[in-house]
């Protein structure tokens, strides 16, 4: 009793789910009880302790469930409550019934055992006194009746019994009379209790305590299913399968009990039938199905004395042909055969579940030649029905002589059929489980993570291939059953923080350790430490407690390296290796907050005076080379604690740590001087470089970052205005910043450009590789990239690289991009003015890194698309690798959202930056725009050809298209086209052009294209 009660303490989570195991336990106990009761009925139970124990367990268990759960049942489940109460009432009724059965069986047991003795003794006396055979026959009849019907619910046997008794009485002598009185007394005793026993067994069947529990269980499972349908299918499936298995188990018990009850009526064949049933019960789930069926048939033929018995199922895929699974003739196993259902008695079985032909079967079924060939007389068939009620096969007994279908045989065949059906269901369930297990193993082997399972002592029981690889193990068997600590070399640094420590903690606490802990471990046989994330989770079992621990590890050494690269990339200028604008901004923000008079910071803004000249006359490579040399010069003359940044183009920024005005000025002057002395040599030319330096000092945390930027901008502007090659100083409080003098400041110019529409849209055609046209015509403008120019107050055109750096510095890019998107969309819709954009199929718009970080832009773009009723499929947004890396999460979000409505995305300047395919995997991109770097003079550059080809292949492999930029002549056009590029773009095809309004005539021409 305590055993059952105790098991409840393991049920921790107090909800309807954890009630399931408790109820399942209740079922199990009830099954045991029912089992005992059946045994008691067939006189096979030697004592009632089992019944008492199980009954006590039932009461205690149910009471515990009631107490434990009555307050904890969720509100939706209140209907469980009355069911539980009803279950308690049923139980008390059940108890009373069982008590009566116990008493009544005990009261009659002796009479049943004693009567045969009495009758035999009476017979002996009869023989001795030479009484007529008739009385002996009457005795025999009584014995037979007693055996058969002691607990049957038919009444006629008792009358027959008394009739036999009457016959004996007529022939009595004194001695016999005594026996007859005794016999009568015991018969009346049995008779007195028999009806109540029969009735009580019926009540138990009817009340079906088990069924009430099952109802409750299915109610909960049903409820659970509703609740967890979407969230946890595995769990639901698990519960359902568990329930299924327990129902199968229950079914077998149920059938055993029902059939057991029938057995009571078949006492004379009890031994044989019991033996057969015992054999049947003695199944081993490792026995193959064929062997099980063979055993069944052997048993059946042994009990029934039939000539041939067989079990047959529908031939796979057929409903007219049967295939035997086991055939037995007089104890000898025969080979299986297939036969037609039509015209055979088996057809009758399939249709009506039973077929009984006691004689002349061959005549009744003339078309079945087998019957006549084997000279069969009798045929008994019993259908095998599966759990869903479908007939799936049959068992048949055949005899060569006329045979009576005894009722016990009927029951027995029923039991065998049921048992075979259950066995099939069970083996199916086991097969499914096995499959699931195999799948789990396969999954385990194929996950990219290392998975190790250890037992509660920390010994390894399972290790998957990835883990073997991680720890340099050749064979999993080498390591199984050794302690997990042997996997790694203990180092001083990891005291208390090794894998085995995590596992011990998990075992000790029986709880989940922190998930994904990053550890540095050194695998045995290795000297190289690895960075791994480790998760350890206990495997808990209601009964046993902790079974073991699952350890999942993944090697993140490369990931960390990669992550570091990314961070570096996002914060550094790829050309010079100095900080980029983003890193500088972050640094300034921090530095301003920590500034005071005692901790000042000097800022230098350095703008090269003649960079544009060098760039334009000697080319980009010269410009790049100059920038590199210049930046190392800056590095050389600043201190290690100072922060150097390149803001883009020829603008540099230096943040001097702990430098007041004197120190900063000193350094700035020194820089001016050193730069003057510096000579940049390119080919045969030599250039002298001068710079304009703006200077300001941060000595208060009160300043806004924008104030700082404006101040230093103004300083630089002053330096330039005063004739370059000099230093200008502005204090942040300088009133000039807001005054008229700051008119030349970028922030004012840009703001004005946005508000006065001083930006102009340009477009550059992108041509399809299979396009035939090589001249400029309207169809050329079907695919375009939008470019931006800014018109100065003086009327001159500024290129993007001239104003973008400043726009980024003042964080104006989102506004500019929004301006671009709106103007492009309105032109596409033909609303602002009629341009060729109205007829473009594909319009590519650049989005800057700042715009990617701007969360509002996404909604704005979506709204504009809606407002102008543009087909999103015509829009393509170009983002650069660098800007995408810097804002990876935002970028992924934006890209996903806009792609979801149909927009396309291309990765601009691909190959110029980190050029990592990792990003392509992370960013869902449609098009790769290959940087001009790879198409320059492609016809001469073997390396670039290979690279270009491989990029194109990768793009295609990933389902993307590729655009080659910078196509400057027909030769490279043809070379690149040969490589299978999808689109081309470049000066060789068409230069960027202003998007001009088209006149009416052109419009009509356009419309005809």
């Amino acid at each position, binding site marked *: 009793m305590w055993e059952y009660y105790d098991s409840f303490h393991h049920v921790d989570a107090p909800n309807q789910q954890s009630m399931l195991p408790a109820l399942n336990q209740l079922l199990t106990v009830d099954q045991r009880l029912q089992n005992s009761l059946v045994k008691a009925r067939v006189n096979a139970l030697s004592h009632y302790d089992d019944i008492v124990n199980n009954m006590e367990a039932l009461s205690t268990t149910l009471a515990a469930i009631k107490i434990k759960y009555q307050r904890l049942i969720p509100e939706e489940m209140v209907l469980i409550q009355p069911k539980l109460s009803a279950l308690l009432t049923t139980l008390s009724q059940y108890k009373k019934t069982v008590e*009566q059965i116990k008493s009544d069986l*005990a*009261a009659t047991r002796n009479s049943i055992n004693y009567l045969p003795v009495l009758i035999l003794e009476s017979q002996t006396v009869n023989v001795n006194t030479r009484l007529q055979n008739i009385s002996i026959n009457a005795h025999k009849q009584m014995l037979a009746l007693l055996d058969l019907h002691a607990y049957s619910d038919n009444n006629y046997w008792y009358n027959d019994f008394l009739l036999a008794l009457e016959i004996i009485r007529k022939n009595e002598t004194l001695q016999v009379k005594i026996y007859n009185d005794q016999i009568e007394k*015991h018969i009346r005793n049995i008779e007195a209790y028999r009806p109540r026993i029969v009735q009580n067994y019926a009540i138990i069947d009817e009340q079906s305590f088990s069924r009430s529990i099952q109802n409750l269980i299915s109610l909960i499972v049903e409820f659970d299913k509703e609740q967890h349908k979407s969230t946890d299918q595995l769990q639901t499936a698990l519960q359902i399968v568990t329930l299924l298995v*327990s129902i199968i188990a229950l079914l077998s018990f149920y059938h055993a009990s029902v059939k057991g009850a029938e057995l009571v009526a078949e006492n004379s064949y009890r031994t044989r039938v019991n033996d057969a049933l015992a054999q049947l019960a*003695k199944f081993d789930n490792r026995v193959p199905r064929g062997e099980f069926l063979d055993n069944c048939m052997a048993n059946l033929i042994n009990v029934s004395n039939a000539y041939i018995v067989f079990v047959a199922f529908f031939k796979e895929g057929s409903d007219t042909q049967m295939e035997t699974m086991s055939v037995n003739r007089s104890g000898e196993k025969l080979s299986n055969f297939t036969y037609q259902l039509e015209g055979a008695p088996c057809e009758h079985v399939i249709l009506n579940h039973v077929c009984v032909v006691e004689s002349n079967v061959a005549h009744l079924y003339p078309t079945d030649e087998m019957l006549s060939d084997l000279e069969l007389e009798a045929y008994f068939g019993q259908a095998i029905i599966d759990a869903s009620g479908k007939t799936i096969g049959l068992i048949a007994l055949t005899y060569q002589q006329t045979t009576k279908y005894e009722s016990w045989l009927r029951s027995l065949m029923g039991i065998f059929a049921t048992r075979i059906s259950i066995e099939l269901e069970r083996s199916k369930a086991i097969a499914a489980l096995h499959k699931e297990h195999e799948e789990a193993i396969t999954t385990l082997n194929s996950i990219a993570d290392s998975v190790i399972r250890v037992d509660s002592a920390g010994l390894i029981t399972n290790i998957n291939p990835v883990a073997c690889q991680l720890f340099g193990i050749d064979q999993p068997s080498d390591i199984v059953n050794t302690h997990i600590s042997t996997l790694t070399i203990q180092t001083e640094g990891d005291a208390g923080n090794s894998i085995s420590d995590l596992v011990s903690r998990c075992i000790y606490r029986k709880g989940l350790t922190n998930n994904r802990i990053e550890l540095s471990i050194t695998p045995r046989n290795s000297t190289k430490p690895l960075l791994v994330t480790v998760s350890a989770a206990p*495997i808990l079992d209601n009964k046993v407690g902790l079974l073991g621990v699952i350890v999942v590890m993944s090697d993140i050494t490369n990931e960390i390296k990669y992550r570091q690269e990314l961070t570096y990339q996002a914060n550094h200028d790829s050309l010079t290796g100095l900080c980029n604008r983003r890193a500088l901004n972050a640094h300034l923000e921090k530095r301003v907050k920590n500034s005071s008079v005692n901790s000042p910071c000097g800022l230098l803004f350095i703008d090269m005076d003649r960079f544009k000249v060098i760039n334009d006359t000697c080319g980009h490579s010269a410009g790049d080379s100059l920038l590199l040399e210049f930046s190392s010069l800056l590095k050389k003359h600043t201190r290690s604690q100072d922060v150097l940044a390149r803001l883009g183009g020829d603008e540099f920024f230096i943040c001097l740590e702990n430098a007041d005005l004197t120190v900063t000025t000193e350094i700035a002057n020194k820089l001016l001087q050193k730069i003057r002395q510096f000579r940049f040599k390119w080919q045969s030319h030599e250039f002298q470089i001068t710079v304009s330096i703006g200077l300001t000092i941060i000595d208060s945390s009160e300043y806004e970052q924008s104030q700082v930027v404006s101040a230093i901008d103004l300083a630089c502007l002053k330096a330039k205005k005063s004739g370059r090659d000099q230093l200008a100083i502005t204090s942040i409080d300088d009133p000039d910043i807001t005054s008229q003098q700051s008119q030349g400041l970028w922030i004012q110019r840009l703001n004005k450009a946005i508000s006065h529409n001083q930006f102009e849209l340009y477009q550059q055609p992108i041509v399809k590789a299979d396009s035939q046209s090589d001249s400029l015509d309207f169809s050329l403008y079907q695919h375009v990239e939008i470019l931006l120019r800014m018109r100065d107050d003086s009327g001159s055109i500024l290129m993007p690289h001239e104003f973008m750096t400043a726009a980024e510095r003042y964080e104006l890019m989102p506004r500019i991009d929004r301006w671009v998107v709106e103007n492009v969309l309105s032109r596409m819709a033909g609303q602002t003015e009629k341009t060729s954009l109205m007829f473009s199929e594909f319009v590519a718009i650049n989005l800057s890194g700042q715009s990617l970080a701007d969360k509002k832009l996404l909604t704005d773009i979506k709204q504009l698309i809606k407002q102008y009723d543009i087909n999103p499929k015509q829009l393509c947004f170009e983002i650069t690798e660098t800007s995408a890396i810097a804002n990876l999460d935002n970028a992924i979000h934006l890209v996903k959202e806009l792609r979801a409505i149909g927009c396309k995305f291309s990765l601009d300047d691909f190959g110029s930056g980190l050029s990592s395919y990792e990003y392509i995997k992370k960013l869902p991109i449609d098009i790769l725009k290959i940087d001009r770097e790879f198409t320059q003079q492609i016809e001469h550059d073997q390396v670039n050809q290979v690279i270009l080809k491989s990029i194109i292949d990768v793009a295609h492999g990933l389902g993307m298209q590729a655009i080659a930029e910078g196509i400057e002549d027909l030769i490279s056009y043809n070379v690149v086209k040969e490589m299978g590029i999808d689109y081309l773009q470049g000066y060789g095809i068409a230069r960027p052009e202003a998007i001009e309004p088209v006149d009416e005539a052109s419009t009509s021409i356009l419309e005809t294209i």
Partner: protein
Amino acid sequence: MTRAISRIICFSLIVFVICSSIVRSQENILTSRTAGILLPLPPVPELDSRKITLGEKLFNDPILSGNKSLACASCHELSLGGDDHQQFSLNTQGERRTINTPTVFNVTHNFKPSIAGTTDSLDIFYRVNLFGKKAMNNTWPKLLKALNNTPHYSTQFADVYPDGITQDSVIDVMLTFQQSLVTPGSAFDQWLFGNDTAISEQEKRGYGLFQVYGCTACHQGKNIGGNLYQKLGVFEDYYTEENVSLKTSDYGLYNKTNNEEDRFYFRVPSLRNVATTAPYLHDGSIDKLDDVIAIMGQYQLGRKINQEDRSDIAAFLTTLTGTYQGKILGLH
């Protein structure tokens, strides 16, 4: 993923347990037929010795009764076999009770604490006897106060129970002590455990007769009885119409259920220590073992048991006398 794996493993385990339980339970059907009808008594369980000490004190202390005149031990003498050998014990008022005092030994192995099925649990049974007017006639407040006023109780209870003397702790002490009141080690149990010489030839013969006559239909299991109700008078009415002495207490289970079917049903008594617990039957009306065997044969089995067989059976019954605290009961 870890969750999924652990679930799959747990799941396979559940299935394994279920499958193996099917196999096991079906094997039970086969083996239990050969299992004995009578089982040896389980040994004394491991118990908290402090509670036993306390329990023994309470058991012998009249403080439990309302007028402090009776202790448990007044009617249940442990050295005698757990009863007082009287037909009816006296209550605190000096009145005779109506049911023969049953033995206090091996009660935890009975399926119901009381012979007439009045209560289902020992806990309630104690309360009935402590506070019943016709028993110890005490009340909780009185009892708790008396115990609290006795220094050695208050300190000893406080040692074991954080809350000291409470209704629950008093009952718990009694329940624990009750569990220690078992008498394993009888000659018959030794024989069951394989000691062939533990019982004599006559006693073995008696055991055979005990089965042949069918006594085991009711007296079976580890407590040799005590696990079912049975009607007194299966074959003939034990109480005839002329029997004027019929009292309410003779109705047995009927007194609790008021169900006519339950009239004259009593819990079948355990035959453990039966040789030391005379007089017999619920009304203590029979003094000799031999007589009660004859009555059982006549009324319960419908058989006349001859003198020779009766003395063999009686001899067998003496082998059921067990030991308490290492000493065999009733020999003094």
